[in-house]
């Protein structure tokens, strides 16, 4: 949903006015709502930034418990909304070559209070997440959306995209973490585990393997969606 290039013209007939007052705005609203839903669902699943765009993989690959995943998801949400909103309004005011630095500076400015907030909600989380928390300030998912998507789209589309991408990212983070925690401990609880410590499936290689299978699942769903109805899609 890109910014409109020119305002819609108004011809002043009564019929046109009636149509505008009743049908067109309703249709427009419905269309806009559908479009926003599509943007949101693209972020959650069909164009999931982690599984399709391979963005922001560092927290995903290193996250091994549900508690860590929830903490990182919280940080992702708290950082990405203000960064994208600010870039939506100011992105076009700065030259293209300054914009990446501008987006990163906003992300950095938001990161400091966000990490303090997270630490008050989940005591000791900043300590246990360590570098993974610090690197959320330069998360490629947040910065690429802020650089490329937010300045070219209207506010509601930016919010739908940000929420969709954050929810999609959080879902993948939590799913991966639950699987790893369950295999390691036999159950899933709110364990605090320092990142970058552990053996076997808590190592990044296992994160990549899970991610590969999840990405294959999304690719299969997208293939099925792109096929015309009634036509059989080959199995995996």
């Amino acid at each position, binding site marked *: 949903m890109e910014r409109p290039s020119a305002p819609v013209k108004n011809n002043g007939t009564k019929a046109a006015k009636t149509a505008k007052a009743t049908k067109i705005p309703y249709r427009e609203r419905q269309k806009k709502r559908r479009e926003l839903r599509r943007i949101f669902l693209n972020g959650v699943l069909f164009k999931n930034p982690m599984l*399709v*765009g*391979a*963005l*922001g*993989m*560092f927290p*995903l*690959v*290193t996250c091994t418990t549900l508690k860590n995943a929830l903490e990182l998801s919280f940080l992702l949400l708290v950082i990405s909304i203000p960064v994208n909103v600010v870039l939506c309004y100011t992105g076009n005011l700065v030259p293209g*070559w*300054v914009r*990446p*630095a501008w987006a*990163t*500076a906003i992300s*950095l400015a938001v*990161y*400091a209070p966000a*990490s303090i907030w997270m630490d008050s909600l989940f005591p000791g989380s*900043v300590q246990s997440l*360590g*570098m993974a928390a*610090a*690197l959320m*300030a*330069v998360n*490629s*998912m947040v*910065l690429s959306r802020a650089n490329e998507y937010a300045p070219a789209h209207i506010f509601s589309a930016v919010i739908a995209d940000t929420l969709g991408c954050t929810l999609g990212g959080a879902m993948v983070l939590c799913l991966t973490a639950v699987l790893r925690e369950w295999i390691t401990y036999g159950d899933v609880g709110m364990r605090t585990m320092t990142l*970058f*410590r552990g*053996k076997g499936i808590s*190592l*990044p*290689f*296992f*994160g*990549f*393997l899970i*991610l*590969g*299978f999840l*990405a*294959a*699942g999304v*690719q*299969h769903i997208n*293939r099925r969606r792109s096929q015309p109805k009634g036509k059989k899609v*080959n199995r*995996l």
Partner: protein
Amino acid sequence: MSDFGTWFPQIITYVLLALSGESILFSGAGGFSRALRAARRPALLRRYSVLVGCFSLFTISLSCWLDPWLSGLPRPTESRVAVILGADLLLYLLAAWLLRRFCPGFWEKTEKVFSPAAINTIVLAMPFLQRYLKLTWPQAIGYAVGTGLAFWLGAQLLNTALRRASHKETPAAYKGLPAALLYIGILCLAFYGFTGGRFI
């Protein structure tokens, strides 16, 4: 000659360190997304890697210089990252402004990879920024060169992975990124060997 005998082994040691045990790209997946994007543009890869090396050198030097002031700040982990990232951004803006003004031809060639290189430097240099910050000049040069080389090597491996993953015999659902991720997962195990049983 004796100076050369002292600093050359240091440079080589830190190049190898950045390339293997401290390489965050495969041992911890840091900077992976940008490396994957770089791998999709092989024509720009050499320039990208050189820029990562240059930004690493400046950032590491700046970090060594700023460290005595940073250690006294409250919440040292967050404030250290914030100050160094801020310094890196200023460095990027200064370098970009100078290039645009005095070498527009070079800027045009490197514009697409200039800001990713600057930001990725922070990610790739993070293990260093977290732990050391007391390197001598030869060690800093070695670490920066090693970081650039590690990035180049990583992106080359990813490029190969993507090409192989797009082979016509690959099952449709796995073609491209999914198969590349599985390939990289197995490759990570090899890098795990360099780290001696820990990662990052």
